[in-house]
């Protein structure tokens, strides 16, 4: 299953929540592969399990069944391996709740670098500039708009140059100008640094920025366009 060309490979992923009659089967034998350096967009109706898929791929939560390989490693249940991959391979933009409320935007970015044993460098300032949030870097989340918070989350997701960026509706709260700036940045890092991007989106416009778009339905990846 491990293939040098594929940075992410998932086979037969199952994931359900709850038990008994209230049980929801969210992922049902889902298969997906992402090529190294690919920019993939994932679309699908609300509640179909896109965020859940992202959490499983990003080792935020384990699947109930199936196989997963990340960056050439078969992923098991071992906490140490999962932690190391999360730390070294991934950068996340979550759909909501990205920032620590007690820290400023700059410190939110700095602490995730520090947690990885890294230091803020010039790249962080560039990212703040590119995302148009340099002027709010000293503010706390409560003093920022949703869109600004989301863009700071993008800065944080990219600051440590992860091999894979997992972004859950990063343009969800953005106007078209900011949305375009974000997509430009994603394309640029994808092209210039071969960073892989998996982006969930509801917007066809945003999806158009990706190399490939997949759709999710009934707990599976349904079709591939382009």
């Amino acid at each position: 299953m491990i293939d040098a060309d594929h940075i992410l490979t998932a086979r037969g992923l199952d994931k359900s929540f709850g038990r008994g009659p209230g049980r929801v089967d969210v992922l049902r034998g889902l298969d997906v592969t992402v090529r190294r350096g690919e920019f993939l967009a994932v679309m699908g109706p609300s509640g179909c399990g896109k965020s859940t898929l992202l959490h499983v791929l990003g080792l935020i939560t384990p699947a109930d069944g199936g196989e997963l390989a990340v960056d050439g490693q078969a992923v098991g249940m071992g906490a140490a391996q999962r932690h190391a991959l999360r730390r070294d391979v991934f950068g996340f933009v979550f759909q909501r709740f990205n920032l620590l409320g007690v820290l400023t935007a700059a410190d939110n970015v700095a602490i995730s670098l520090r947690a990885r044993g890294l230091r803020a460098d010039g790249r962080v300032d560039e990212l703040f500039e590119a995302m148009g949030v340099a002027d709010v870097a000293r503010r706390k989340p409560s003093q920022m708009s949703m869109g600004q918070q989301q863009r700071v989350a993008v800065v944080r997701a990219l600051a440590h140059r992860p091999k894979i960026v997992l972004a859950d509706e990063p343009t969800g709260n953005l106007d078209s100008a900011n949305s375009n700036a974000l997509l430009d940045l994603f394309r640029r890092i994808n092209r210039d640094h071969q960073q892989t991007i998996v982006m969930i989106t509801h917007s066809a416009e945003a999806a158009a920025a990706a190399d490939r778009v997949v759709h999710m339905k009934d707990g599976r990846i349904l079709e591939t366009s382009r």
Partner: protein
Amino acid sequence: MMYLPLANILHHKLRSFLAAMGIGIGICMLITLTGLARGSLNEVADRWESVNADLIVLPSGWGEQVSTKSGSGLSDGFAGVIARKFADQVESIVPVFLWRISLAGQDQMTAGIDAADWATLTGDRPLTAGRMCDPDGRASQWLAGKILSAPAEGEQILDLSAADLGHPDHNCLELVIDERLAKAGGYRVGQIVRAANHDWRIVGIAPEGVITRVFMPRRTAQFLFASGDVSRSTLMFVKLKPGAGDLGVIARRMRDQTKLDVLAVAEYRGMLTRSFGIMFVYVNMVNVVALIIAFLFIMVILYTMVLQRTRDIAILKANGASNGFLIRQVVAESILLTAMGVGLGIALSFLSAWIIQAYRPLLTVVIEPERIGWAVAAAGVGALASSLYPAWRATRVDMAAALSLE
């Protein structure tokens, strides 16, 4: 960047302050209670050590309990025996009759002494006001004469009414008190105070640091508190001549030849501390309980903070934070809160020491650097211990659940 634990503390200022205050009160109790117990004990010991004598002679078997003894002890006749047998070594012998009387709302150890012995007893420290009680010994002579001429034992008690004792011609009811008691009770020279069923006149004020806070004529003390037996005192101080020889050797010889207990004045502090050892057990128990409560409080606060911040913890974890990193954040927060608490506690200790001494001038609170060191060490251990469980809980946070909760 702003340190996360500090940012958390500053973000919840009131809660952090209350947590620190919980620790602070525990620390303050530890420092103040210990300081009060040790301070008051050391103050007594210092006063006894200020006596310008070398040995204490007591009835056989009283040695270890010297600090708790009062009343009739050994016959005054021993003064002559010791003076004769140790003529080469002994310079002077001072018999003292100890008794507790209640003044300024508190029991005061009172020394019945002969005015002539004041110099030996205190190193000749001058009174700060007034004069010695029964300075020329007239009252003592009158009292002794009355008792010794009484036809039968017991009759002298009937014969000597309170009015007689207090008669201006032979005033037996005179007190000298120390400055601290004068301040605590608001007493002045010339004032009449009621104690032990008699009206006493305060005739002098002694400087702080003399052996007891209250002095009265020794004969009076013997007559009143030893049922008229004017032949016994509680103990005797013995001052040796310069170059008399080794203190231990002389004490041993004196013990052998008199069959009395003989201790060095310098041993008093240790005996006092041992006699009140149980008090330290009690104080330490109270301290331990106070600290445990304070740290349970910190633990609950940290624990609720961890429960409230599962989302923050999940975000950190998703962003590469290891378990060690998460644990360090919680432990650091505990240490910061505790450090604030220790600072508050030390400040509170000085404040409460000041308040105690302002409102209870007879008590002594000493805040020793060593006690502060112990408090800081105990707080450090407590900070670590109380943060371990909350820190462990932080590592167990379910990221997916925390990040998908509304």
